[in-house]
């Protein structure tokens, strides 16, 4: 068995607002091995971005990690002191955010933003750090690295900036790289370039990747295993191939069918009835029951646990016959 770099168990994040305690992330668990890619997929507001904030221990107020554990290379991050966390962030776990336009400091040169990350974690001179930053800029496939090193983000295109962010994330060779919708803001041809780059670098460094997206097509290309989220809960967890060949949760099935395919028919698109419930007004039973075509009285009255077999975990009573799957 490959070496496990990240183990998340029953991670829960609650936002304490005027409308009450909102369970933004509710008991998400997964493990991530070296060199593996986990895809997290779901619609906006399903808690996928908050899950990674929870991993980094950077949940914004008024939210808080209210349960579970996050073990990075065997070390527990939940409850760790901020000073220790600073040493982990950027060193052992790095993140690429969605918006390349705003996630870089607009007043600082790209090169400096990379080299300061190196200096934050290694005792090296400014010169050495700059040298290393320059190498990284070249590594992420930017033409004329010298020129880009001295540029500020405002002079670069979205794709270029995202490459800089990738260089910055990888500069300390982290064990885990989190990509939070890194290509959503980019055009398809640039998206293909960036996805290719992430895959190439992941293989080169053996980095484990968590890839968050709402695009199932991207998941198909990138992920080894997938976690489907719905209103803060994981509803289906399985190997990528199995998920696309044999989706078991009604939500996953619905999601796949309502995307207009590149070779789909001309009829009306499949729709999922109803809308996503609000966190302060969650249904009593299964969270998907109000929109589920198969829902019965039990679904409406009781929350399902995980069922399934062979590493396929599904939060649905219809899979009960396949056996209980507590955790892997």
């Amino acid at each position: 068995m490959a070496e496990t770099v990240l183990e998340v168990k029953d991670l829960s994040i609650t936002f304490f607002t005027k409308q009450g305690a909102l369970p933004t992330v509710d008991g998400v668990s997964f493990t991530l091995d070296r060199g593996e890619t986990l895809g997290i997929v779901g619609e906006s507001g399903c808690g996928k971005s908050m899950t990674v904030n929870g991993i980094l221990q950077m949940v914004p107020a008024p939210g808080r990690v209210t349960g579970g554990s996050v073990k990075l290379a065997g070390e527990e991050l939940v409850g760790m002191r901020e000073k220790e966390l600073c040493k982990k962030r950027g060193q052992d776990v790095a993140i690429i955010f969605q918006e390349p336009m705003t996630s870089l400091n607009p007043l600082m040169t790209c090169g400096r933003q990379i080299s300061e990350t190196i200096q934050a974690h290694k005792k090296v001179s400014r010169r050495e750090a700059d040298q290393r930053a320059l190498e990284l800029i070249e590594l992420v496939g930017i033409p004329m690295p010298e020129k880009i090193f001295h540029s500020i983000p405002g002079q670069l295109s979205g794709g270029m900036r995202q490459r800089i962010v990738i260089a910055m994330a990888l500069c300390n060779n982290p064990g885990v790289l989190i990509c939070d919708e890194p290509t959503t803001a980019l055009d398809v041809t640039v998206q293909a370039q960036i996805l290719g780059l992430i895959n190439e670098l992941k293989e080169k460094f053996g980095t484990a990747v968590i890839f968050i997206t709402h695009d199932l097509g991207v998941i198909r290309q990138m992920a080894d295993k997938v976690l489907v989220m719905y209103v803060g809960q994981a509803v289906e967890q399985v190997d990528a191939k199995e998920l696309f060949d044999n989706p078991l949760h009604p939500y996953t099935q619905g999601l796949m069918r309502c995307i207009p395919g590149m070779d789909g028919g001309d009829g009306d698109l499949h729709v999922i009835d109803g809308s996503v419930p609000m966190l302060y007004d969650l249904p009593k039973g299964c969270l998907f029951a109000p929109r589920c075509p198969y829902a019965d009285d039990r679904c409406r009255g009781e929350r399902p646990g995980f069922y399934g077999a062979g590493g396929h975990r599904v939060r649905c009573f219809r899979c009960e016959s396949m056996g209980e799957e507590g955790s892997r």
Partner: protein
Amino acid sequence: MSRPVLKVEHLKKYYPIRKGAFSKEKTVVKACDDVSFELYTGETLGIVGESGCGKTTTIQSVIRLIEPTDGTILLNGEDFRAMRGEELKQARQKLKLIFQDPYSSLNPRMTVKEIISEPLEIAGVCPDRAERDRRVLETMEQVGLDPSYVNRYPHEFSGGQRQRIGIARAIVLRPDVVICDEPVSALDVSIQAKIINLLRQFQRELDLAYIFISHDLGVVRHIAHRVLVMYLGRVVEEGESKELFARPLHPYTQALLASVPRMDAEGKPAPALQGDVPSPADPPSGCLFHTRCPYAQEMCAAHAPELREVSAGHKCACHFAGGLPSKGE
């Protein structure tokens, strides 16, 4: 087929910019250069391309939200560009627009009723208030909004519902042409599907013609009958949707299709194109695509290819169109 409801010929929109810091020399950005198309009743024309390719400039010029530099726009056979005053106002009733962002497209200080009835008021078609209210309620019903929400404000609605209000506003005057500028891009897939179905339903029921702009090729393929592919302000390929997606002729279209991550095919992503789109202020010589084209030859840098008909109804602006290996499906 009969006369096209909208016919656009050689539409151009140039923006002048100053070249250097002090130079008097001015150059132009050709945001939309020599775009022509025809649109028939009951038909959907898709326009695809990456950001900065001029899709939005094109439709904003067509609808005269910005004045085009040159070209002809015929709406029901009449010269739309020459219209002024009351004539223009009446013509505008036949040409409507749905925007991308369901959050900034509705005035937060107006109720749903005021929003939907504004086009009626401007057009002055029903001076009777009761009649106007009746039409607003009827339209709300049609787009699947509960008419009892008529006095509510846009804030109260979800993204999908706001887009329905936008659609209601666009169809309340029974237009001939509705231009949809990325109407589903800001929505989640499950809501996107509902809106697309709704638009298709109206097309069938009201015989609408759509111009549908999107960067999502899957959506365009699903909804459009014919497709224009744009690159740096120019049309590089035009054809029937099925034909174009099955046998793309232009290397750019081929690359675009190959870049879309697909659910049905496993495999690592392979970037089909290198580099970024060149700056529109300093476009490449000859064929605009030659800097990124895998098949570029010397002549591509020297001569700009014409948009020519390669097979029936399928046009392409490439010197080698038809002679290239088809990378489609």
